Each structure stands twice: as structure tokens, then as C-alpha cells.
């Protein structure tokens, strides 16, 4: 009796699945999946109503440990274009999703695949690869989306991708791209003013994700609370970080929403340093819904911390 009931349930589930799965899908807009909210923001800026964008992350995650959801698989299966940062930043979820989505038009090498870090000159490219260095990224530090120069770079790559897939709208995309660059130029003027407060200062970070930003403003990353990238701190390592911060007089600890944890609080308590929580992607904080907004929040918070 039990086995009959089970047979019925299985058959019903299989039948309903086959019936529901046959639904067709087509729309005039380009269907785009972007890994990060800032990429989605730039796609929407340049796409100007010609695109329909789904974003995988939401703004507060550790980008090296994102859990993919069924809706992501479905969106990628139907997408015309996929946009990622690259440099293995999204390694924890993109390869598996792309393999599972089975959409040949968005796999690496296809016209619909856009990696905005292509031709970017990465920093901290490891001379040799070993797990002794922790979660080492073979192509260098992948957090290029936090470099003040990255907006234009990402916008160029996205414009090129849109034109490649929809050449009939190339003129529109070109105009929108130019308009975006103008917005960027205005924002950069403001950032430069804010940066006078923190240019050349010392910070300690939890994870090495603000290195491009620090390098751009000649800031010194005096230490990392993580033992190695992706490896949590040991008590000995925390003691060393605390001693170093005291010796060097570092007064600011920069963390992302995902890394504002007890270890950071412990170091801050021991050193009297101020914890500054910065977005590591758009969408994670009020005012940081766009890439320009996110970078403005970063500059404002750093300026306030050192002001």
C-alpha cells in the first residue's frame, strides 16, 4: 500500500513537471544576467530600456562564497548576455551556473559572454601558485570593481557587448555610454576632493579587497585580519595584527558588510581603531545602489573616518 502511494506521488510529480516545462519564452529586449549589482546598473544605464537585467548577488555577500539559486539557473538558461567581473572573482558560483544553465550563447568565447576585466591590468598577480598563500587568485587581485578607474573600463566592455549582440542599436548605446562617462567625470571631481582626507593614510583591512582603491590613493594597507586570503585569522595572527597596528599607529580598519565580525571587533577594541564598513559591491548600503553611488559612499565614509 505504501509503495503504491509512493508510485502515485512520483508519477504525479513527473507528469506535472513535463507539462509545466514546455512553456516557451521570447521577448524583444536583450535578456542580460549580471553577477554584481554595479554591472547590472551599468548595463541598464547604457542599455536604456533595451535590456532586461537579472542580478545574481544582492550587495552584502562575500563574493568568493555566493550561493546560487534556482532563479539564477533559469535566468542564465534564457539569457542573451552574461556580464561578470572576471579574474576569478565569481569563481564560487559562475562556472557551476554556466555549466548547469546549458546556454551556449553566453559561455566564455561566445558573443554573449562579457568579462569586464578583460584587458584590465591586474595587481598582485602571484609569481607561483600554491594553496600556501590561501585562496590565491591565479590572475591577480580580482576586486577591480572597487578601483575608481573601473567605471569607465566596465562601461566600455558592456557597451561593446551590447553592440555586438544588438548592432542595430549601436548609436543609442554609444550615446548612453557617453552620457555615463560624463556622469562619471562629475563624480570623480567630487571623489578627488573627498580623497584629500585619506590620501596616503594607513588602513588595516579584513580581506584584501580594497587594494585597487588603496593603490589609487596611495594608501598603505598595513595589514589584513585574515591570516591569508580566504583563511580565517588564528589567535597568534590577531595578536600580531594588534601589535603591528599599535606600533604603526593605524587607526582605521576597513571591512565589508560580510566581514564585519567578532575578530574585527576584537582588534578594534584592542587598538582603539575605528571600524569603517564599506560596500564591496553596489546594493549593499543606502546610497550605494549604483556603481557611482557605491564609490561615492566609499569616498564619503573614508573621508569621514580620517576627517
Amino acid at each position, binding site marked *: 500500500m505504501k509503495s503504491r502511494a509512493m508510485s502515485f506521488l*512520483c508519477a504525479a510529480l513527473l507528469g506535472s513537471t513535463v507539462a509545466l516545462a514546455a512553456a516557451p519564452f521570447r521577448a524583444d529586449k536583450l535578456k542580460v544576467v549580471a553577477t554584481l549589482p554595479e554591472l547590472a546598473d551599468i548595463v541598464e544605464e547604457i542599455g536604456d530600456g533595451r535590456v532586461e537585467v537579472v542580478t545574481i548577488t544582492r550587495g552584502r555577500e562575500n563574493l568568493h562564497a555566493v*550561493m546560487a539559486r534556482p532563479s539564477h539557473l533559469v535566468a542564465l538558461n*534564457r539569457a542573451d548576455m552574461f556580464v561578470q567581473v572576471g579574474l576569478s572573482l565569481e569563481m564560487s558560483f559562475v562556472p557551476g551556473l554556466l555549466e548547469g544553465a546549458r546556454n551556449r550563447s553566453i559561455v566564455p568565447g561566445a558573443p554573449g559572454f562579457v568579462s569586464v576585466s578583460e584587458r584590465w591590468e591586474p595587481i598582485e598577480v602571484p609569481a607561483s601558485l600554491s594553496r600556501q598563500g590561501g585562496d590565491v587568485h591565479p590572475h591577480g587581485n580580482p576586486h577591480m570593481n572597487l578601483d575608481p578607474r573601473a567605471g569607465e573600463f566596465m562601461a566600455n566592455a558592456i557597451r561593446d557587448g551590447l553592440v555586438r549582440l544588438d548592432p542595430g542599436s549601436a548609436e543609442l548605446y554609444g550615446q548612453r555610454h557617453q552620457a555615463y562617462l560624463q556622469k562619471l567625470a562629475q563624480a570623480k571631481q567630487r571623489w578627488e576632493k573627498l580623497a584629500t582626507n585619506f590620501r596616503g593614510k594607513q588602513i588595516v583591512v579584513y580581506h584584501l579587497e580594497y587594494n585597487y582603491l588603496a593603490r589609487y590613493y596611495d594608501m598603505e594597507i598595513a595589514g589584513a585580519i585574515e591570516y591569508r586570503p580566504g583563511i580565517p585569522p588564528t589567535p597568534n595572527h590577531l595578536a600580531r595584527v594588534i601589535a603591528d597596528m599599535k606600533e604603526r599607529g593605524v587607526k582605521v580598519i576597513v571591512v565589508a558588510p*560580510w566581514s564585519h565580525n567578532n575578530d574585527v571587533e576584537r582588534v578594534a577594541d584592542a587598538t582603539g581603531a575605528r571600524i569603517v564598513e564599506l560596500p564591496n559591491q553596489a546594493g549593499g548600503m543606502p546610497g550605494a545602489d549604483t556603481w557611482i553611488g557605491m564609490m561615492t559612499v566609499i569616498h564619503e565614509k573614508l573621508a569621514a573616518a580620517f576627517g
Partner: protein
Amino acid sequence: MRCLHLAVLAAAASLVPSARAQGPGFQTPGMPTFGYAGIESSQATRFSSEFNPAFSFVVDALGDYVRYSGRSDDGFDADVRGFELGAMAWVDPKAWAYFIGAMEDEQLAIEEAALHYVGFEENSTLRAGRFFIDFGKQMQVHVHELRTVERPLVLRAYLGEEVKGDGIQWDDWRPVGDKTAVRWSIGAFSSILPEEDEFLPDPAKSVDERKDIQDFSFTARVTGFTDLSDNAILQLGASARVVPDYAVEFEATGDTEEGLDNTVWGLDATYGWIDDTGQRRWTLGAECLVNTGDTGADNPAPGTVDVLDDTVCGYYAFVDYAWSRYGSAGLQFSAVELPDLNASDLSETELYYTHAFSEFQRLRLGLSAIDREDEDAFRVALQYTAVLGAHGHGVNW
């Protein structure tokens, strides 16, 4: 003159860039062409490693203490429970393959060796070779990849500790709406009987090597998972494993019984929640199994075989909480009606804590209690697992 000959030979050898280990230095008529250098160049020489597979190693070590009620063989033990060597690579643009060798009885045995053909236009995959069966959420993976020290009791009792088979499997998935994906699979295998039956070791079960197609063993699974919200996922599934013809043999008497059949049905549900930062996670899951048909046999006297034709049920349920990428703990309970003449019940409770030093090595403390009518057992286990290299299987969701 001799030196000149040697020099000419050496120069000729240096002009053969694509020679193969088993092939000739260059191709002559009648020699193999496929996969060798020559007419069909494979863009590498026999000394190149550019296209070699990705390799991985897994070490799973376990130290434990077990105390039984009413028995004297309590005590400590420690051993390397598993050592696994894996290799994985794309064969060509439409297929990838992998190999998993595992240490069994001090020998390296082929645990999995399968090819995945993904060249279909739709979302289908044809899998062929030796691989773990697609049943529920936990049977596709090796024991050392589970959340717990051991596979849930009911799976061990009805299906086996690790169940692999030589055969083929058709897999396909479809979107349903914007937030749901549904996958189904059907597999046919020469045999998917467990190598060892932990609960009914005697008699030994077997299937004929050569048989009609309807006497192959089959698996089927349909599963759907959906976004409940931005933070929560629900997955439901139904599975079946059918062994339509198998035989038992009692070692002590040599008695056998043929023409037995057994089917296991399963229903599973898994709920996952993750916080906005991706650090804290709750996972709750349950699976119930129905084991029906010829579930076993007894040999009360030489020449007499009593076949157990019965339907028995069991289930497991768990709750798991991860407070960071590196720390998690959980509780799992499993209860099962054993397929023996006494139809005795058995339950297992496992409490575990896992600390990951990094993404690639972890330490787990497991406390488990087995409750049986005539005997109880308590176990403390410390499990260390390390993964080196590009570890992966053909695991589906």
C-alpha cells in the same frame, strides 16, 4: 661515418614534434590515426602536459571510540578511511569525463569512471560508465563529502553505504516559471547492489552478468528546486531504485535463491536559508524511504531458504546551522525498520560539529548513538578530511 649516421638520426628525431608514447614517431599507413599524432594531430607531443586532466586527492582519516551495551569489543580505532585520486578533463567540446580511484583493502579500485555527453541542443546530459546512483540528496556523493561522519542510517540499510553502478543515465532539466528548475533522470545499470550489506551481510547478493534488458537495475529521480525568497530555497524530490532480478547465496551452506526483486522508493525535501552576507546558513532536510519486495532471505536449515517479501520504511531528518564559512553544527536522526525476520527497529542520532581550517581541510567531531531493541552503541568520532587539487564529481542537484 658512423658519427655522421648518428647525427642524421638525431636530427631526424628532433624533427618529429608530435610523437606519442604508444605510437610511432611519425605516422605510416596502417597505423592508428585516432588520438595519435600524424594526420590527426592533437596539438601536443608525448611530452606535453597542456591538455592533461586536472588531478585531485582526498584524504579522509577517522579516529573513534565505540562503546556497546552487552558486548566486550569496545575501544578505540584509528585509520585512513578513504583515500581518493581523481582526474577530470574535457574530452572534446561536447563531452567531459572523470575518474575517481579509491583505496579499498589497501588497493586502488575504480570507484567512478564516467563520461558526460553534453552536446545536445537542450539541457540534457547522457552519462555513461561507472558512477554513483542518482537517489535523493545524499547518495550521489562520497561519504567524506557529507555533512555527517556517516551516511544516514536508512540509506545505509536500504541502499548501501556507497552505491555505484556500471551503466548509463539520461538527465534533463527544465525551467518552470522564473524561479523554479526541475530535473529528472533515468538510469539503467548492470548492477547497483551494494558491495557490502552492513545490516544483513549474509547472504551475499548478486545479479547475473549477462541478462535480458528488463533485468537490468534502474534508477529514476525527479526533483524541483525553487526560490522561496532571496534568502531561501526549497527542493523537493522523488527517487526510485529497482533491482528486478537478483540472487542470494548463503556462504555456510551453499544454498541459493534466485529470481528475487527489490525496489526502494524515496521522497525528500530540503530547505536552505542563507543570510544577506552569505555567512550564516540554516539547512533542514528529510527523506523517507520505502523498501519493498524481496528485502532479504534467511537460511534456517540447510536446503531451506526463507525469502523476506515485505515492505519496510525508514527516514532521516536533519538540521544544520553554519555561523560562518568555517563553523557549523547539526543534528541528524534516522530511524529504520530492518528487513529481517524479526522486523526489528533501529535508530541513530548523530550530533556533529565541523570546523573548516580553510576551504580545503576540515575537522569534524561526531557523537552518535545507535538504539536497537537488543543492543545500544555510542560512538565518538573525530574525522579529518583534506582535499588537494581540483576536486569534483559528476554530482547533480
